[in-house]
Structure formats: structure tokens, C-alpha cells
């Protein structure tokens, strides 16, 4: 995990420096100045999170140059094997944005169906055969 966090943390001073150069060069043009400094914040945010995570967990086989694939066997986290729910949100989302161009009545239909899809997705692993 340390390598990943370093990759992002090294980007932070780079973008901070570029931000300073850009600010001076463009006489503080607002869009780029704000944007570049916040890209520094973006990489700092991910980098610090990964560094904190790296302190909390054991070294993974991926971190070991001599690691073997079978050392990584076991719990990989919770992943849905398959799910219809993303599709049940994507279709209403498309309807909603189409509604912005076509007419507001379509937005109402899209949002209503979207709420159903969202609730279905969030509770997919809390009910039915997955109730726990």
C-alpha cells in the first residue's frame, strides 16, 4: 500500500508548485489557479487516505517483489456477483436527463423510477435471500 500512497503524495507538491508557477505566470487567472491547487488537494486526499490505510493493514503479497499469487488467496472483500439494479438506475437516469431536454413531466417519471431502483440497489444485500 505504501507505494500507491507515495505515487499520489508525490503528485501533491508537483501540482502545488505548478499552481504557484501558473498563478504568477497568468497573473492569478481564477479558473486554472483554483483548479491546479485543488488537483494538489485531490492527490493529497487519496495519498493520505492510502498512507493511513497502509499503517492499519498488513503488507500484502502485492507489496512483496517475491510474492506468489497463491499468497493472495482468501477474502478479497465483498463484491456483488451480478445485479440488475445498476441497470434499474441507469435507465431512469437516462430518462431524467432526457426529460431536461424534452419536458419536465419526463423528469418526474424518471426520478420516481430512479428512487425505486436506488432503494432496490441499496437494500439488495439486506433483504430476501441475503437477509442477515
Amino acid at each position, binding site marked *: *500500500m505504501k507505494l500507491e500512497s507515495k505515487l499520489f503524495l508525490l503528485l501533491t507538491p508537483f501540482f502545488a508548485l505548478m499552481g504557484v508557477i501558473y498563478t504568477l505566470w497568468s497573473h492569478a487567472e*481564477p*479558473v486554472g*489557479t*483554483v*483548479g491546479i491547487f*485543488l*488537483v494538489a*488537494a*485531490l*492527490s493529497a*486526499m*487519496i495519498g493520505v*487516505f*492510502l498512507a493511513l*490505510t497502509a499503517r492499519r*493493514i*498488513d503488507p*500484502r*503479497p502485492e507489496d512483496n517483489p517475491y510474492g506468489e499469487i497463491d*499468497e*493472495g*488467496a*482468501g*477474502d*478479497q*472483500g*465483498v*463484491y456483488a456477483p451480478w445485479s440488475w439494479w445498476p441497470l434499474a438506475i441507469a435507465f431512469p437516469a437516462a430518462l431524467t436527463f432526457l426529460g431536461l431536454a424534452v419536458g419536465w413531466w419526463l423528469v418526474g417519471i424518471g426520478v420516481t423510477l430512479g428512487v425505486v431502483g436506488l*432503494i432496490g440497489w*441499496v*437494500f439488495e*444485500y*439486506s*433483504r430476501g435471500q441475503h*437477509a*442477515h
Partner: protein
Amino acid sequence: MTVNRPNPVQVGTIVWLSSELMFFAGLFAMYFTARSVMPASEWSAQADKLNVWFSAGNTTILVLSSITCQLGTYAAERFRPRRTGKLWQVGQWGMVEWIAVTYVMGAIFIAGQVTEYSDLVEQGLSIHSNAYGSVFYLATGFHGLHVLGGLIAFLFLLGRTFSAKRFGHHEATSAIVTSYYWHFVDVVWVALFSVIYLLR
């Protein structure tokens, strides 16, 4: 022995939040651009309509709600969904109680923002009255929508907790990533408040 891995939901949430940072970067850039092209006297005539003290109180509530949210997350990490004592024994509170308090505080923030908007509209500052109105309502409004999204996420979190007989990693992870989101939206508001109300 299985390897102790980073929680993919947490990593994904942080990466997504960093992209949200770029969304707000666009709003800040829009605000500063309008500020740099609008005549200073015209700009401050509009900005002087803001009620800084009212918004400061609202900001305090949102910042405090981050603390209650974090206390709820600690309870979730200890797998304590509900209180073990009486309602007034705050030290025994579980995640549900803390999240309920956080929800109420977030709702007060939204109510305060609505009050503020109606005051400003009464003073003649609306989204299409001038450039200041447009950037003000877009920046604070999109943030308000994020707070609203956070409130919905809290409802989902409570719903997952209520529907689970055993409060496990699935529910605790939901609590942790929702708190990440809430803290992020809180920090963004502190930045927006500093820029829009204090810096003007």
C-alpha cells in the same frame, strides 16, 4: 491465513470524493471568475446583502454535525448499532442515536439555508437578478443538494441497520463511508463559507 486488505468500498468512496472535489473546483472557479470580471462596487453591493452571522450559526451546526457523525461511526466500528443505556445516557449511545442527531442537525442546516435564500430573494437577489446571484445560488445550492444527498444516505444507512438482524461489516462499512462523505461535504462548506461570506 487470509491477507488483511483495504476495504474496497472505502477506497472507492475516497477516489469518488476526490472527483467531487473537482466538481466543487469548477464552482469555485466560476465564482472567482465572476468576481474578477464584475465591477468591484457592483459585486460588493450584492455581497453586502448576505447575513454573515446567520450563516455563521448555520455553519457551526454543520461542523458540529460532523462530530456527532464521527461519534456514530465510532459506535458502528465497535458494532454497537443501538444504545445500551437510557436515552439520556449519551455515553452509551449507539450508531442509530448519533446518526439521528446528525440527521436533525443537517436538516436544520438545510432549513437555515432555505430561510437565508428567501431573505435574499426578498432583498432582490435571485438566481437570475445578476451575475453575483447566479454564482452565489449555484455554489451554495449545489452544496445544499450534496447535504440533501447526505441526509438521504443517512436514511439508507439507518434502513440497512434496521433491516439487519446482526449488525456486521456490511452495515459498519456503510456507516464509515457515509461519514467520509459527510465530513467531505462539511469541509467543502467551510471553504465555501470562508470564500463567499468572509472573503466576499
